[in-house]
Every structure is written in structure tokens, then in C-alpha cells.
């Protein structure tokens, strides 16, 4: 067994500060009323002379601009659980050790993540990207790994001999003993765990309690130390207060990036992708803004999700500044794992195309980005349909004698002596091709189609309506025609 302990030493602080880009003096307080004291503060605050244990009133006297927030234990626990869900991508065995510690059993993951050093680096960098400060230590027993992390030593110990030697050098206060027991150990000169282990066991147990011996034995691996496994929730949901009311997209995206990184860790741990997700921006005094992102393909690519969100935010006007951002996964689908490959392959192309379509649609709207398909119908205007990009068509409907451009609505041609005119008299080159069909719906047609040429050598597709009037109409160009741009024909025809 090999355990990786992940200690988040400034968790009470980080849950408020991880959405902040600018560094300002900030502290978390505990306790009630006049006895409220600083529990944790950031570096900016420490530079001004504040430290944990100081009364809040004293800290405010040092800097009136200090932002003090009461500690939120429930949010800390929720944050710890989300980090645990994220960490499941490295190993299936993750265990919570509140407050502020996680244990990962990584013996089976070493091969996949290219060794312990590489795994430790990936975990540490990942947690940092989530916005938390972390100390990562590895040891053969869970408690030993925790003790090393508490001592602030990012060691990687794999063997029992090395563990015994290193453990003996740890200071005795990492055990977190009650003040009386700690003082007693200090008085008898036992300053390290090694000193404690060298004392007679019976005497030590009588003086400082059985618990110390038990802890030492579990850390050294002489007693079993079972841990409860963490089971991830079925849906992901997280919220994040913003350091200051924000209306600019960049500030919101910074906070959203943290949440999306958590989401994507959770998704990759559970071999899923998200197809629909919901961002909720809370405001002071007005209704929350809800942004629902629907993707064509389930994805767990944080950068892609962030790009889609960016386009949506650019197109959204917030009624007032947001004070918190929440993310909830609405629809999760299993996604097959993809192995990394050197050359771009078909699957990667399809994924890139789906991501492109989502990005375009987030800004231009769903109806403005479509694919084309052919339909089995003789009527030219019924022979095609706008569809989801990537839809397969009937191959049989391909027709080489049709123009490349079709007019949205046929345009009536002027006539000169019963001959159609368009920039002059038209010469009919081919035809007639009779199309008479559609009696079953209200769009019956009865037309004779011709290929016609203008005096300026452009090729047109025209027809003569066999109904009343027998008028000539222009229905297509064999190549592009500049004169009248029909504008938003796609919006009208998409269905």
C-alpha cells in the first residue's frame, strides 16, 4: 500500500480566495462577538502584522481595509468533498480526513501516471489549478503520510525502513496531542516521535494516554488503519462566492475556470462527459441569471467548456453585478476514453468539428449554424433541408443537372413577346424538364424547367408555371449571382 496525503493547509481561506485574481488583505475569523479572532489570513495580511489568534478588532486596527469573513465549516467540507471527487481520476480509493486532508491510495496508479514523482507533480499542479494551496506527501501508511504533510514535508517514502527513520525525526507536536500531554512530552525531553518510541511503552501509555501509542503504531504500520472510502455523488454541483461583485466576463470566467476544472476531474474519474450544464449567477436584489449550455457531444474538456461559456457570457447582459457563481451538471453521459495519438485521426476531427459548432452556436445562435441534407422529393424547394451538421444524406438524391444556387423564393421574370427576359432576352439551352408533383400537400407544383443563358453568358435555371398565367420564374443560378442577397434565408428555413 502506498498512500498520498493531500493537505490543504489554508482551506478556510482558499474557499473564499480562489476566485480572486487581485491580491488584497483577507482574513477568516472564528468565534462570536468581541471574542472573534483571526483563524487564517493571507500573505498580504501577514505582511501588515496580522497573524492567526489575533482578535479581529486588533487586526482591523492594523488595517481598516482588511476584509474579514466568518469561517464557513460547511463550505470547507463541501470543498473538500469536491477535491476528493476530482482526485478520483488518479485512484479509485480516496478517503476524506477532515478538516482539510485527503488520502489517496496510489499503489495501483503508479504505472499509469509514470511513477510516484510524476503522479505527485500532477496531483499538486491539479490542486493548484483548482485554486488551493496543497502539501503532498507519500508514505506506506495513511497516518504517516498525513503526519509528514502536517509537518510540511513533501516527502515520498516507499519502504518501511525509510519510513521508520523519517518518522523518528518528526517533531512530536504533529500528533496534535492535547496541551497537557504535549507539555508532558516536552518536559521529559521527548521532542521527536523517535524519542517517544524510545520511551517504555507502558509508562508512556499511563502518562499521556493509550491514544498516543496507538497513533504511533498505526503510523509505523504495526496496527491496521482502515479508512472509509469516498463515494462520488451522481451529479456535480458547486458554488463559489466571488471576492467582489463582478460584471466583467473575465472575472466571472476566472471563477468559472476553477469550477470547470473540478467538474472535469469528476467527469474523468467517473468516465463521463457533460452534455448540458447550468451556470447560475447570483445577484444582490435581483433574480439570478441562469445560463444553460447544451453541447452537441458530451465533453469533459475544461478549455472547450470555458470557450463555450465565454461566448455565452459575451452575448449576455447581466442586470447587475454577480456576487456568486454556481455550476451544476444537468445531463451526464458516458464517454469512451481516448488514447493519446501522435497523428490526428477521424475521432479527433469529429470532436474538433463538434466543438467548433458549439462555439459558433454559442455566439450566433442555433439556427445560424447548420448542415445540409438532400431529401427525396422532385420539387426543387423540397429537395433539401437544413439539419444538424454532420447528418448523412441519401446518396440517391444527388443530381448533377441542378444549379448550385437556389433562390429562396422564385423570382418572376419579365416577358417580351412571351419570351423570358433577364438582362435581355434569354436563350433556352436545355429543357423542358417537367416537374408535376406534390398533390398530396398544399405545395403542388406544375412546372417546366429550362437551362437559360443571359446575353452576358450567365447560366440560369428558370421555369414556366403551367398554372394560370403561365409566367416565367427564375429559380436558380448555375453559379453565384451577386445582385440580390436574400439575407437571412437560413433562419427562415431551418426547422
Amino acid at each position, binding site marked *: 500500500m502506498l498512500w498520498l496525503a493531500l493537505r490543504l493547509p489554508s482551506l478556510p481561506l482558499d474557499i473564499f480566495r480562489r476566485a480572486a485574481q487581485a491580491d488584497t488583505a483577507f482574513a477568516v475569523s472564528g468565534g462570536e462577538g468581541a471574542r472573534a479572532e483571526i483563524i487564517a489570513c493571507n500573505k498580504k495580511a501577514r505582511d501588515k502584522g496580522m497573524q492567526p489568534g489575533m482578535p479581529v478588532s486588533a487586526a482591523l486596527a492594523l488595517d481598516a481595509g482588511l476584509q474579514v469573513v466568518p469561517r464557513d465549516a460547511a463550505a470547507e467540507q463541501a470543498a473538500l468533498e469536491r477535491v476528493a471527487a476530482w482526485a478520483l481520476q488518479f485512484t479509485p480509493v480516496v478517503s476524506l480526513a477532515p478538516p482539510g486532508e485527503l488520502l489517496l491510495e496510489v499503489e495501483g496508479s503508479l504505472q499509469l501516471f509514470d511513477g510516484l514523482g510524476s503522479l505527485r507533480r500532477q496531483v499538486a499542479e491539479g490542486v493548484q489549478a483548482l485554486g488551493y494551496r496543497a502539501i503532498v506527501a507519500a508514505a506506506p501508511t495513511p497516518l504517516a503520510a498525513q503526519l509528514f504533510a502536517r509537518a510540511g514535508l513533501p516527502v515520498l517514502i516507499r519502504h518501511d525502513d525509510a519510513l521508520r527513520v523519517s518518522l523518528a525525526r518528526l517533531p512530536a507536536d504533529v500528533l496534535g496531542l492535547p496541551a497537557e500531554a504535549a507539555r508532558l512530552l516536552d518536559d521529559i525531553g521527548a521532542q521527536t516521535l523517535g524519542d517517544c518510541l524510545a520511551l517504555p511503552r507502558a509508562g508512556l501509555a499511563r502518562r499521556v494516554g493509550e491514544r498516543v501509542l496507538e497513533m504511533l503504531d498505526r503510523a509505523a504500520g504495526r496496527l491496521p488503519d482502515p479508512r472509509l472510502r469516498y463515494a462520488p455523488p451522481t451529479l456535480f454541483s458547486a458554488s463559489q462566492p466571488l471576492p467582489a461583485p463582478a460584471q466583467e466576463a473575465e472575472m466571472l470566467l476566472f471563477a468559472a475556470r476553477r469550477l470547470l476544472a473540478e467538474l472535469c476531474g469528476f467527469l474523468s474519474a467517473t468516465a463521463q462527459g457533460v452534455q448540458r450544464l447550468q451556470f447560475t449567477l447570483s445577484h444582490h436584489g435581483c433574480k439570478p441569471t441562469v445560463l444553460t449550455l447544451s453541447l452537441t457531444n458530451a465533453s469533459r474538456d475544461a478549455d472547450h467548456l470555458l470557450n463555450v461559456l465565454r461566448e455565452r457570457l459575451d452575448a449576455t447582459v447581466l442586470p447587475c453585478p454577480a456576487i456568486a457563481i454556481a455550476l451544476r451538471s444537468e445531463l451526464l453521459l458516458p464517454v469512451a476514453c481516448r488514447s493519446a495519438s501522435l497523428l490526428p485521426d477521424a475521432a479527433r476531427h469529429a470532436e474538433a*468539428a463538434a466543438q467548433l459548432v458549439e462555439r459558433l452556436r454559442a455566439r450566433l445562435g442555433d439556427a445560424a449554424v447548420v448542415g445540409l441534407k438532400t431529401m427525396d422529393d422532385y420539387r426543387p424547394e423540397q429537395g433539401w433541408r437544413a439539419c444538424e451538421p454532420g447528418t448523412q444524406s441519401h446518396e440517391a438524391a444527388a443530381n448533377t443537372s*441542378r444549379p448550385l*444556387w*437556389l433562390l429562396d423564393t422564385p423570382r418572376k421574370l419579365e416577358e417580351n413577346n412571351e419570351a423570358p427576359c433577364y438582362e435581355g432576352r434569354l436563350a433556352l439551352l436545355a429543357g423542358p424538364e417537367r416537374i408535376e408533383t406534390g398533390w398530396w400537400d398544399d405545395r403542388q407544383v406544375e412546372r417546366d424547367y429550362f437551362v437559360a443563358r443571359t446575353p452576358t453568358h450567365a447560366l440560369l435555371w428558370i421555369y414556366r408555371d403551367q398554372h394560370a398565367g403561365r409566367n416565367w420564374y427564375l429559380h436558380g443560378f448555375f453559379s453565384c449571382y451577386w445582385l440580390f442577397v436574400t439575407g437571412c434565408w437560413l433562419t427562415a428555413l431551418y426547422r
Partner: protein
Amino acid sequence: MPAVSELSLDAVLNHPAIWRGNACARVAQPGMATGFPELDAVLPGSGWPAGALTEIYAERKGIGELQLVMPAAAALTQAGRWVTFIAAPHIPYAPALAGQGLALARVLMINAASAEERLWAAEQTLRTTCSGAVLLWMDHIHERALRRLQLAAEEGGVGLFLFRSAHVAAATTAALRLHLSRAHNRTVVRVLKRRGGGLPAPVALDLHPWVRFSAPARSVPVVEPVRRAAAPIQPI
């Protein structure tokens, strides 16, 4: 050292250090075949420049601008790359595109109202690895925006075809500029600019070989309705 007589003229002219003013530039990346051998012969890289901007100016309307790029587009879609139409002036007719050999599942239509959105969509598409070609219809583009698109095309290795009307003819950064006109029932392609300089003689292409032209044009017959449903097209 070989005797002078042993060197043929061809061998000398093919030497990489020799450049002839009337020759196509040698390009590092071969182009996409246009499907028209006469046109390929005058283009550097024997085809449409890959990862560069090509401008196509049509002198008259409806003379085969889109037809010109169809063979290359068909080859790209069949190879699984996407061909994107941005702000097309009319409906690209799906059965005709399929008839030209395009795989419609790899065709993307983008309809953007403002010039800014068209340029943004073009840039997004050009920077995507799955793109093969982007066809953009825009008459007035700011020079800086055009250069940005050219860079995006270069970065993504995607061909960008910009269709403009002939009266917009300022100097641009395009790698290739073609001018289309029509004469004697054929489309005449004139190269306005190509990499390597030297302008070749215009190339006449038959873009609609399936329509047999009758010259001179006859006056229009008054056609009696023929009672047949969906008869195949008949040359007159």
C-alpha cells in the same frame, strides 16, 4: 568538372538555384488540385494554395465562381475535412452539391448577419484542425481583418476562398487572386496575382460541360407543355 556539352539545357533550367521570371514559384507545400489541369498548370504548387487566402473576383454574375472550387471541395469532404460556407448569397442547393461529389455530412453553413460576426466565424473555422476549406462571401473587408484571416488560414493550414465582386480590386495580401470573366461560352480565369510573380496567359475553362451550348443563341421557342413527370433534362 563535367564538360559543358554534357549539360543539357533542361538540366540547367531545373537547377534549384535558377529562377525564371515566367515560372511558377516553388512552394514548400503542394496545393490542393483544382480539378482543372489547365488551371493547375499555372498555379504555384499545382493547385489551390493550402493554408492561404485565395480571392476570386467575378466580373459578371453567375459565370461559374462556385463551380471553380467544387472539385477541390469535393475531394476535401471525401477525405473527411469540413467545407464551410459563410454568408452564402443564396441557398447552396444540396442535391447539386451532392452531384458535384461533396459529402454533405462534411458541409457546414454559417449565416451571420454582421461583417464582424462573419469574420469571427471565419477565423474560428480556420483555426479548427478538422477544416479543409472556408468559402466566404464578403465584398468589403478591412485590410487588417483580411491579414488576420490570412494568418489564421496559415496557422490552421486551411484554404480560405474569398468571393468578391470584380469592382472591389484593391491590392491585398492574398496568396492568389483570380479574375473570372466569360467569353465564347467558357469561363476565362485570369491570374491577377500568384506567389512567385509572373502572370500567365488567361485560362479558359468549360465549367458546365453537361450543358451543350447551341451557338448562336436561337430565339426562344414557345414551348408547349409536355405531359411527362420529371423527365431527364434534354439538350435542345
